[in-house]
């Protein structure tokens, strides 16, 4: 039906972005359209390209820490986590147990915050205004908790090679426990307001179906992949830090539509809360920072470290040359691969569905552009 003669003759281009409300920042999608049907969406990236990888090559490895938080500012701590773990793997620094626990707790809190923001932003894309404010209300609690120990609210620079910047206190533990209780109650509200809503279900069910094969060809990871029914989570499949010590599930969807991706994220928040609870219960005593040489030397050769960021697998690939400056640092960001399937996924769908798909991918543009 899409390739009728009429539609072939009546194609036109529509620039969606870079200042479009639902491209979340500065993403341009050039849509070739026929009526309200999208025939060929081509994303154009690079509006906030800052060449972080070049910056990494021009300063000692410790100096790149603040940059990691600025790639994905919504979920900065896993980016910190990946980078410090990479350097620790490269140099063989042992991290105290307590520090690893703190890393896991804060990373998971940050993941929940990221998902809460996504929840609101997605509903905003679908035209509901209120959930984003509720999401922000909850997220604000996390930011307050994290601000208290990290000193910043968004672009954290909390982890250090061999540990964390400062120890957590009882106030943090109590606040986190209280927050978990609160969020569990709030899930009921989200379920009533959003998950069960018939309009929401109609807007997301059977929209933008990503088949497992398609996910593999595009290298999709994270909740977008798990929505397609593949239980791939770096925290489970490639355990790092102290994740193997916790009991948590990897939620998966059934067919890979927007609703599945939504449900995966919602259930992931619950799992994150479980991890945090277990970590708080078993929090070991001890130092939070190992002794590390002042001048960290990166041995020649390459090294890879993957962590699960809120949007999927984040890989750092480092080539060292014996000095303290990385010779080459490649950051493999999840959203980049996730979005690359859009030209295939968005063929022949309606414009509102494209907005729904974009929202369900949970894109953070500065992360893709780096």
């Amino acid at each position, binding site marked *: 039906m899409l390739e009728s003669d009429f539609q072939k003759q009546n194609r036109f281009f529509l620039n969606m972005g870079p200042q479009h409300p639902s491209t979340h920042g500065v993403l341009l999608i050039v849509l070739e359209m026929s009526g309200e049907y999208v025939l060929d969406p081509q994303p154009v990236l690079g509006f906030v390209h800052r060449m972080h990888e070049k910056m990494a090559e021009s300063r000692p490895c410790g100096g790149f820490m603040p940059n990691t938080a600025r790639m994905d500012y919504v979920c900065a701590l896993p980016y910190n986590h990946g980078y410090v773990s990479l350097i620790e793997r490269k140099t063989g620094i042992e991290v105290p147990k307590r520090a690893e626990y703190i890393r896991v707790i804060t990373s998971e809190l940050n993941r929940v915050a990221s998902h809460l923001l996504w929840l609101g932003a997605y509903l905003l894309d679908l*035209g509901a*205004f209120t959930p984003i404010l509720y999401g922000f209300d909850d997220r604000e609690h996390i930011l307050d908790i994290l601000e208290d120990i990290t000193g910043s609210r968004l672009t954290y620079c909390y982890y250090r090679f061999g540990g964390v910047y400062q120890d957590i206190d009882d106030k943090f533990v109590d606040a986190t426990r209280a927050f978990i209780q609160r969020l569990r109650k709030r899930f009921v509200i989200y379920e009533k307001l959003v998950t069960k809503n018939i309009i929401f279900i109609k*807007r997301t069910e059977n929209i933008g179906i990503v088949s497992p094969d398609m996910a593999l060809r595009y290298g999709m990871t994270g909740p977008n992949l798990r929505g397609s029914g593949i239980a791939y989570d770096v925290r489970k499949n490639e355990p790092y830090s102290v994740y193997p010590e916790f009991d948590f599930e990897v939620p998966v969807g059934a067919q890979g539509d927007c609703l599945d991706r939504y449900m995966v994220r919602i259930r992931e928040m619950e799992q994150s809360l479980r991890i945090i609870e277990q970590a708080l219960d078993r929090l070991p005593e001890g130092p939070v920072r190992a002794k590390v040489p002042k001048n960290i030397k990166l041995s020649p050769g390459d090294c890879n470290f993957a962590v699960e960021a809120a949007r999927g697998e984040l890989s750092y690939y480092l080539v060292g040359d014996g000095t303290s400056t990385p010779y080459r640092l490649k950051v493999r960001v999840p959203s980049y691969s996730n979005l690359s399937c859009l030209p295939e996924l968005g063929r022949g769908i309606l414009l509102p569905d494209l907005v729904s798909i974009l929202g369900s991918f949970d894109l953070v543009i500065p992360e893709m552009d780096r």
Partner: protein
Amino acid sequence: METISILPPELIRMLIAVIIIISFLFLNAIMMGYLERKIAGHVQRRPGPMEVGFHGILQMVVDGVKLLGKELLIPFNVDRTLFRVAPLLSFTPVILPLLVIPFSEKLQARDLSLGLIFIVSMGSVNVMALLVAGWGSNNKYSMFGAMRAVAQSIAFEIPILLSMLAVVLMCNTFSLKEIVGAQQKIWFVVLQPVAFLIYVIAGVAETNRAPFDLPEAESELTAGFHTEYSGMGFSLFFIGEYTNMFIVASVATVLFLGGWHGPNLPYGEYLGVVWFFLKVYFLLFLMIMIRWTYPRVRFDQLLNFAWKYLVPFSFVNILITAVLVKL
């Protein structure tokens, strides 16, 4: 009929009515704008406008002044005539229906025997404004908005008419005054709950309010048909939308909620307006709450909803009503 002879000539009466209605229309837009912001704020657990006046009560006045002072930007390459005409076109037809609405027993500018038909026909002119605005803007997003508005309006006009017809069948008149008069004992919402529901849903869609705000749909079409408008051009659309909401709510009040009827007040034939406004603003409150609760429906779902659910239900409803009335 004695009262008419002591009234001023009909023309003066109409002029006064029009002046009152136009000033009320602006007042309503200001009030609705304020209410919408305040309710939206509290629904989202924030205070809403707080700075201008007591609890921000003058915020909308200030905004109005600001919009008046803004330049009416006319983008390059637009159809200048259509672009300028569209806001006026959206504004004028919403004044006229107010002339035939009976606010209380005696407060009615003109009681047309075909009042209901008049309102419906004026309501359809409004979509013309959206089409002209979208077409004249020379912007693809505006064009999408305009096309959606037309299809949506056509689809929802039918259930609106059919649900009205059910009421008309029950009291055998198109005159709004007589319809209210027929509800002296029992409101039609009790007798016609399905028609009432259909009317409210279709009315929300007719006024392009969320969750049926597809012509605007800011997450898809930036701002839809009024993307290119600024200053007064934009605010006329804005006033038009709120007045349209008011008309839909007052027609619902007249048809289903018993118009000015309520517990007796002194000077009931004039002060019935209090009950009327209470009912109207209750409905408007409901419409605002709906906007801040639900996501937007998709375009084809909207049309499906009209044709697959609203139209069959209203047909069945009419059939049953007709049979029962005949009995």
